[in-house]
């Protein structure tokens, strides 16, 4: 029998703790495939956030650290500055990167740190029970916006990638969606480029934002979640290259 698809070696054979239809599984696989294709497994250090992906080191078979909520870009700075020969990436959700860690990501980009940042935007705090994130859509019902998010009082969805793209220190910013096979292939190409920049010693930060389904807290089926990204989220968070 011919093997046509198999688990990429950096993705550990580990029972998933993610909900059915969650985008983290896809994103994890893409990152691991990219690491293996680029041959950087032995010199990569990953940073797990606080959020649903806090246990990312159970899936990624590279050296990993788990850090305080939002502080990954600062930790990554400490790692990369002292280990310029290593490939350092942070994997952060929207609570981690767009709420509590806003200062850290902006200043890491501002200092042109040579890092690769994977930003999972599922418009909700998943681990704590589906509360509003800065990226929550207007009208979206969450545990802390039971009537749906209102701009008056709860603000507008925060487009962090657009904010970062204007900084000279951010050399590559692209938003992709984990919402169809074609989109997922594009996401992989973007992730690969983000890692390649660091491998090639490009002077600055690269970030790939992935619009990612959270069927549990969107109260949708997994297929509907994919369609929601394509039809609704992309209106607020347009896909494509913002920089680089």
């Amino acid at each position: 029998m011919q093997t046509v698809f198999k688990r990429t070696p950096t993705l550990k054979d580990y029972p998933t703790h993610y909900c059915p239809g969650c985008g983290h599984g896809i994103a994890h696989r893409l990152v691991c495939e990219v690491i293996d294709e680029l041959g950087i497994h032995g010199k990569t250090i990953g940073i797990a956030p606080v959020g649903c992906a806090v246990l990312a080191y159970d899936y990624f078979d590279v050296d990993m650290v788990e850090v305080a909520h939002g502080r990954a870009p600062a930790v990554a700075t400490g790692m990369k500055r002292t280990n310029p020969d290593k490939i350092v990436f942070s994997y952060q959700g929207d609570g981690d990167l767009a709420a509590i860690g806003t200062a850290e990501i902006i200043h890491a980009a501002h200092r042109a740190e040579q890092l690769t940042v994977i930003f999972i935007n599922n418009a909700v705090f998943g681990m704590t029970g589906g509360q509003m994130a800065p990226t929550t859509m207007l009208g979206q019902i969450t545990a802390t916006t039971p009537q749906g998010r209102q701009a008056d009082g709860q603000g507008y969805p925060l487009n962090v990638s657009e904010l970062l793209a204007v900084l000279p220190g951010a050399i590559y910013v692209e938003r992709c969606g984990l919402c169809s096979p074609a989109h997922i292939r594009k996401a992989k190409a973007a992730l690969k480029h983000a890692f390649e920049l660091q491998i090639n010693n490009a002077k600055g930060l690269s970030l790939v934002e992935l619009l990612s389904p959270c069927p549990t807290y969107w109260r949708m089926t997994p297929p509907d979640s994919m369609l929601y990204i394509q039809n609704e989220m992309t209106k607020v968070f347009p896909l494509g290259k913002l920089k680089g």
Partner: protein
Amino acid sequence: MCGNEAMAEAAIQAGLDAYFGYPITPQNEVTAYMSQRMSEEKRVFVQSESELAAINMVFGAAATGKRTMTSSSSPGISLMQEGISYLAAAELPCVIVNVMRGGPGLGNIAPSQGDYFQSVKGGGHGDYHCIVFGPSSVQEFADIMPLAFDLADKYRIPAIILADGILGQMMEPVVIPTNSKLNTHKLKLPKKDWALTGADGRKQNIVRSLWLAEGAVEQHNYDLQAKYRQIEKNETRCEQSDVDDADIIIVAYGICARIARRAAQQAREQGIKVGCIRPITLWPFPSEQISKAADKSPIFLVVEMSCGQMVEDVRLAVAGKTPVVFWGRPGGGIPTVEKILEKIEQLTIKPKK
């Protein structure tokens, strides 16, 4: 050299790989000095966007096995408490210097010892300790740096140097312990095989502080406590002078200890038998030494630049065997020899029968 610069150079000589910091008075000489010297040495210096970021940069460098430090002053150290708790939990070695100023809040920029509780009792969340040193001269400020790095590495623990605005700013002649001299007392340090260096040809290393399995954090705490008991046993340091025949023993650390020592000498000249105990490590605290001294029933006088923090540990050590009296000044007030002497004289007045 001022204390801040002496300590910075001593850290460089102790093999510091990376310094991360954010400006705050009265420790700005450190960041300025490091920005110049670390680039000369082709090592890492980053001025961070906040103390939150600085301590997490330290966390990152420490996780890869590098010698790293930050320095700040009281309000900045408060911001670092989250990171210090994570460093303690993940058992990452590093050095944190606190050049204390008046508090609470923004307080002032005058010297203080108001952060004793924060440093020795935890400060951040959870059951943890850092090794805490309280140097009392510019020379000791410098001498403690290599020891702090060595002990941090040996026990995989953050080490805090609790200095104050006087020590940071004061200029004194100082001999910086250099690389060659360090080798004479360098501990045999364990290999950092836990460090994140890339899983090339070995199993993945993980640095973490989250343990979700039932009982796992409880066990992690017991393991940390076992380590803390070892440190208490091996690393408690204090200086005792004229204690054996003393009717009054002053307990003071840092710059207060020097003022107290002078007061004790003057008291001796007046015929009052005064001794001094100066904790050099504030955690582990020299409880045993104080307890032993208390057996001869002297009166303990604790002098601090605070409203009385270390005095609680002295009382715990003395355990009611003999009276413990406190005198101190908070918020930038500096105790004088005369005032301490006055206090000593008061303690010699016999109560009327």
